[in-house]
């Protein structure tokens, strides 16, 4: 038996790691992976609260978060491929113009 706060602590740690990665990394693919890490942290707290409150709604929300993450990954990676074709770099500091 583990108190809910341990899960929330792990969830907060994952979210903080995601934020840190988003701020310190420069590769656009790694930035995307940091966003996925943040979403995973949020999912963990959804599941932890669903268990605490004895309701299944949290599980449904996690399912929807996953679907949105999948859609985001598909579109985002397509955008990354498109950016790489036009600029030939993955460094976000060099992608500083909206239009070439």
């Amino acid at each position, binding site marked *: 038996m*583990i*108190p809910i706060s341990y899960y929330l602590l792990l969830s*907060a740690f994952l979210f903080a790691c995601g934020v840190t990665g988003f701020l310190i990394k420069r590769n656009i693919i790694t930035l995307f992976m940091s966003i996925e890490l943040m979403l995973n942290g949020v999912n963990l707290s959804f599941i932890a609260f669903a268990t605490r409150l004895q309701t299944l709604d949290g599980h449904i929300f996690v399912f929807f978060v996953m679907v949105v993450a*999948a859609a985001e990954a598909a579109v985002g990676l397509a955008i990354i491929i498109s950016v790489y074709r036009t600029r030939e770099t993955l460094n976000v500091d060099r992608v500083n113009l909206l239009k070439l």
Partner: protein
Amino acid sequence: MHLFLFLLFGGICAGGAVNLLIQRKTINSALSLIVVMGSLALIYLLLGAEFVAVVQVIIYAGAIMVLYIFVIMLLNAGEEEQAKGSNVAKIFGIPGLFAGGIIGIWVLLQHRPAEQGVKIGALYGPADQVGWMLFNKYLLAFEVTSILVLIAIMGAVVLARRGNN
């Protein structure tokens, strides 16, 4: 036993998350993200979320990360350049780290194990109940999700197509 499993998988999860930050190569970050997602699936099982654990492995660790690794290999993403440490990061980051650590230790001291939780084996979120809720209470959201996925597929095809610019 439950605490041991939680600490094991939580440790693997946190280690993978930190490894994602310190790795220089993109492919290593992606592989450590897969480790994070796999251990999170096991933590979901500890919490009794059977359906979510399976979906986590299939969608996240399976589909999404395969897509990431495809793109990393396609774009030949090697080592990345790291940003220089800014002063703002030092001014806000170090006190923030201390505050987070203190809150974490306080929570660990305040809440002892064996208060509440789900017993291992007593699965609480079985797939049939989740599916029932998905097709009754959340039917509209589920259908709207299918439109979202359809639009995302079309957007991905249009954006990644060659020769549109």
